């Protein structure tokens, strides 16, 4: 098993931390992992993306231009990465702020309304974990027990009280997943 993932959105949407939690969880589950951020002069409101690879084998290139899965959180990232999904691959996106929806017919496409749902719950910062939940529903490559360990590892100790909320958000994401085009 090798899963090559791009997560992309605005800086401040939790793109890098979603990737980090995924990578840590994979590492806890004894997988090989790689987490490669874009590290330009990014800032809140600018674009941000991270390539996460989780594999049973030694990982070759940490930078990629084709992905098994794209998790897209804004229009700029949709424009940039829709065509980077491998044929037969998966695209999950947050419809909030998306005007040009994905049109490809050779990949599976799902919506997860992470931003809206997070605001409804009352914590906008959980939107990334809701998106992650949507992804894990379709590709359950991380067991829940290792997701918790990944959260423990990637969050500073002072934030460990937030872990149950994060886990709940992941479960919410699994429930609100909307198939748009399924192969």
């Amino acid at each position, binding site marked *: 098993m090798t899963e090559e993932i791009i997560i992309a959105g605005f800086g401040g949407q939790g793109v890098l931390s979603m990737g980090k939690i995924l990578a840590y969880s994979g*590492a806890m589950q004894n997988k*090989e992992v790689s*987490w490669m*951020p874009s*590290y330009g002069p990014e800032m809140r409101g600018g674009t941000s993306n991270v390539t996460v690879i989780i594999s049973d084998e030694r*990982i*070759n*290139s940490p*930078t*990629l231009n084709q992905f098994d899965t794209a998790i897209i959180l804004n229009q700029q990232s949709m424009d940039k990465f829709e065509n980077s999904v491998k044929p037969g691959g998966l695209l999950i996106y947050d419809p909030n702020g998306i005007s040009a929806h994905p049109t490809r017919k050779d990949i599976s496409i799902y919506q997860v309304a992470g931003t809206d749902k997070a605001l409804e719950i009352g914590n906008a910062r959980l939107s990334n974990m809701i998106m992650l939940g949507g992804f894990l529903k379709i590709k359950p490559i991380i067991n829940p027990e290792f997701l918790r360990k990944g959260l423990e590892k990637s969050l500073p100790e002072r934030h460990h009280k937030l872990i149950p909320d994060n886990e709940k958000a992941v479960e919410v994401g699994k429930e609100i997943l909307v198939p748009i085009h399924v192969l």
Partner: protein
Amino acid sequence: MAKEIKLMKGNEAIAEGAIRCGCDGYFGYPITPQSEILEYLTAENPYPKTGMVVLQAESETASINMVYGGAALGKRVMTTSSSPGISLMQEGLSYIAGAELPALVVNVVRGGPGLGTIQPSQADYFQTVKGGGHGDYRLITLAPASVQEMYDFVELGFDLAFKYRNPVMLLSDGVIGQVMEKVEVGEYKPRWTNEYIAKTYPWALVGKPESRGHNIITSLQLDPVVQEKVNHKLQAKYKVCEENEVRYETFQTEDAEILLVAYGSSARICQKVVQLGREAGIKVGLLRPITLWPFPKKPLLELSKQVKSILTVEMSAGQMIEDVKLAVECKVPVQHYGRFGGMIPTPTEIFEVLKTL
């Protein structure tokens, strides 16, 4: 004892490797894409635990000269920077090489020339292996291609530096500096005691005992006869190093008809290209130099008898290709593919080039 696995950035692995291998001192000045090294060391604050000094110097020039001073005492000292900062250190590196002192310098390369860009590059190859500073000297150069190697090569770098009394450069780039991967870390090793240094490295300035004269560390010899002797000694040392310290790795070269040659992050990308090539039925393999100086000339010459063409892939306009051509004595065609100025080549675009060979 169970293996301790950490998930960390390449830059953090450099810092962790330094603390755990018993490094005595780090002197550096922040610059992207390697600022995490100084940040991590400052946050970890190893001084109360191991006595390792971590100091943010006022400049890169100051950093390398602090390293010069520490190295003269037989201490395991290091600095890190990225391309423009490493350029500022060249005078100091030449002095350290001329004075025959061991030191570790890490360059997490970014795009140039000039202030350039903060994105990854490999365009400092010439500067590192062909001189950089003035005079006939060499830097033993290690090119890590993973976060594990960023960790491992700190201790290896110090070992080689002390074995040959020569500065060692760890030539990395923004990809390997910024990527997070799993690292198996080793035990904490104690720093060397002054007694150990005095006994093992008699050249070190540890205080003059009654039994011998003064130790003098200098790179200045006004008498050209003496200076030529110094140079002969350096060249003899480099020859031994070339015979003993070549390191490289091969992937699927056994039946290869096309050979990729790449180091550092480009070698990681090329492993993907080998995978794509093999899936398409192309007999392609990869040789990854781990030491850029000394360069793996012999294994390349051997492989040149087997392959019909060679492609070097570098994040530069083509620098290592010159050493590859020298190594294979131009017996097979050698081509270069590169992106530069901070652009990273994709596996697909290299694969497209591969198909034309």
